């Protein structure tokens, strides 16, 4: 009795789960990056590989429990004993694992082993409890040096720039929103002002931590215009859940327009 109930329950759970995953009841949002499709296909690949193991595993378990739940015949081991099982594990799983790590490394490499395009638009990103600020180099194409001691949010000097003594920093454009031109390589440099944070844009398929003390570069190219959320995924304190900014992917023209407006507001 219990046995059949258990078997049915497990089978049911397995099928419902499989359905939800295959039917994408909950799934990733549209992908707007050039490298994204590689990651998506890798995920689909993994869903296939792991999903098969999941369904197979659960159903075999359910089947055995169902079949022998009430059996009182003399027990027998499976023919061949443990050897085939071990062999199976090594060959099949090993093969899948190898496949995943190699295809996977391709996808990973495509994102992280490639050098940023020399013409990429550099943007400096600073995370702090609990907001992001973005810095564009301005006409001179040079970022001003940062002086932590000068950081003063009361006067909106979020980065700690020193316009009085540092010409490079005078034309730096600091914004609270990340706007980028579509179809143009972007090179972000992430640095944190205080604790660990993270830069997560689901549509870009990009997630990268801010590690205090390090300047971490990430580069990508957005393929669709629109407004997307940037959220923090690294526990950073009481405002963690509320730490976000917006990514605006604009046409080149709109972007230039936007940048002018921002420059005027400095």
């Amino acid at each position, binding site marked *: 009795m219990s046995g059949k*109930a*258990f078997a049915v*329950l497990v089978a049911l*759970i397995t099928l419902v789960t499989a359905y*939800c*995953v295959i039917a994408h009841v*909950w799934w990733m*949002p549209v992908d707007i990056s050039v490298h994204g499709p590689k*990651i998506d296909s*890798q*995920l689909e690949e*993994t869903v296939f590989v*792991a999903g098969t*193991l*999941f369904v197979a*595993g*659960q159903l075999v378990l359910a089947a*055995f429990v169902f079949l*022998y739940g009430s059996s009182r015949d003399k*027990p*027998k*081991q499976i023919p061949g*004993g*443990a050897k085939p*099982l*071990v062999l199976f*594990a*090594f060959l099949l*799983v*090993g093969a899948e*694992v190898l496949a*995943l790590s190699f295809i*996977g490394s391709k996808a*990973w490499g495509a*994102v992280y082993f490639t050098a940023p395009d020399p013409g990429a638009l550099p943007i400096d990103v600073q995370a702090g*409890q609990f907001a992001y600020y973005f810095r564009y180099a301005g006409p001179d194409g040079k970022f001003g040096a940062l002086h*932590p*001691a000068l950081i003063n949010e009361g006067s909106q000097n979020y980065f*700690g720039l020193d316009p009085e003594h540092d010409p490079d920093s005078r034309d730096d454009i600091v914004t609270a929103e990340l706007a980028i031109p579509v179809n143009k390589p972007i090179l972000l440099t992430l640095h944190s002002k*205080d*604790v*660990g944070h*993270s830069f*997560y844009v*689901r549509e870009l398929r990009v*997630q*990268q*931590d801010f*590690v205090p*003390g390090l300047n*971490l570069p990430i580069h990508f190219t957005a393929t669709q215009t629109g407004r997307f*959320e940037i*959220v923090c*995924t690294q526990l*950073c*304190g*009481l405002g*963690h*859940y509320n730490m*976000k900014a917006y990514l605006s992917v604009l046409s080149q023209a709109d972007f230039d327009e936007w940048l002018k407006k921002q420059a005027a507001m400095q």
Partner: protein
Amino acid sequence: MGTTPAAVHHAPPQGFLRKYVFSVDHKVIGIQYTTLSLVAAFVGMVLSWAMRVHLAWPNAKIPLLSLLSPNGAPGGLMTPEYYLSLMTMHGTIMAFFVLTAAPMAGYGNFMLPIQVGAADMAFPRLNMASFWVTLVGFVLACATFVIPDGPPLSGWTAYPPLSAVGSVAGPGQGWGQNLWGLSIAFFCVASLLGALNFIVTTLELRTKGMTLSRLPISTWAWFINAWVSLLAFAVLLPTCLLLVLDRLGGTSFFIPAGLVFNEQVQPHAGGSPLLFQHLFWFFGHPEVYIIILPAFGIVSHILPTFIRKPLVGGWKVVTFAMAAVGTLSFVVWGHHMFVSGMSPYMAMVFSVPTLFITIPSVIAVLIWVFSLYRSNLRFQTPLLFSLGFLSLFITGGIGGFFLAQPSTDSYLHATTFVVGHFHFTMGLSAIFATFAGFYYWFPKMFGRMLNERLGKLHFWLSFVGVYCVFMTMHLTGFAGAVRRYSAFVDDFMVPLIPTNRFISVAALLLGAAQFIFLFNAVWSRFKGPKADDNPWSATTLEWDTTSPPPFDNFGGRQMTVYHGPMEYDGEAGVMQTSPEASVAGT
């Protein structure tokens, strides 16, 4: 050398204190540990309740909370910082004081000496010390709830600088974090002493005929696990000390230069948060196996009894799988740091062994599942929970494929997918195995049977509940729901609120089901029917003595072992100590 009789190397103590409180008897200590974990488990569960309620109904007022912390929950309305504190303490208490303590220190202490035919642990006083040190650690952890600063909010991983710079980083980073560091340090010391005791006992105190090849698989699991703990906790200990040094000694091991809080530049310089992450995860990943290996052992030990046949491949295959898992667990920690700015090449280096560690795990699973082939299942509660463990562990393991690869992890990292994954693999799998062990050994530990009906009810509700809660978390993870958020305010999170409510309701029911278990345990402890010496007709030494066992475990009998631990053939079963012929057809 080593041939001195195991029999009473310390006389039965007199007086209540020596007998039940400051006892050096491994059985009492085992029960003390189990009780401690039980208390801790319910504390941790209530914390998760509060979190789930707040997540589903952010404006819900929880009056009791305002009593516990007027600051954290003014008027019962939970503040984000208090949510994070509850989350941190839930993780800490569950991971350390429940999952690490119960199946290893709890059952291991009680059963391992008996299973090898010894009268006690190798170092009884050390054993007592490790329990009391654990208790101190637990008290310190709980103390964070009552101090003004409140509990820490930097998660059970306590990443610096958040955890290292002190209150400038916000509420919960004051003395709460100091106590947290000390609490874990105490727990490390206790675990090290315990591991040492387990290893020596297994190797040195086996009774006549109990060769290594005849050890019950649970003993093997505890033995292997002791080695993993011995190395892992030996690294967590200094890590905690260095963290506390950064906080109280003004050092900068984990704090880089030029950090700015509230427009004040911090005095620290030269440290590296990544150093902490490396040290922590060098412990942290073995830790999840420290949690799951005893579960492996318990299930491998219980299954044969209730399917009335040995495991496929006997003791060797599973044991070697466990040993392989334990060894590999030390070379995979980097997969927690794929998005931490570690070199992407390092990420590849760590990804491969992480995927390969699935092989021994799969072998173990295959052994368990295929052992059911042509078996005689006996559907008593311990078996149900063992089967439940199998299902949960398979599911949890599958999630690993997604997180082991940097490419897919870069999307799923820090989503609820991760939360669902580790709750399946190490959280609930281990808990189910622990329940299996509880229903299986309760008669031996307390001399009374648990109520089967309640036990089964407890199983069905828990099993369904677990899937409703944590499988749903996997799915929302695909949608990108971020973990450790105290409210869903982001545009893409808002649509998930209904799903989230469902999870919360399921979680509350899942929690409620545990009270059935609590009632069953307490009631049966005093009113349950008396248990025979061997109620499950099992074959290992703990079933070859009275329930509960006498002070020296075997009443002065010299135990001699003739068989392996899995001598089952349908009805028939041969005690390890009986000279009869073997019946198992391995």
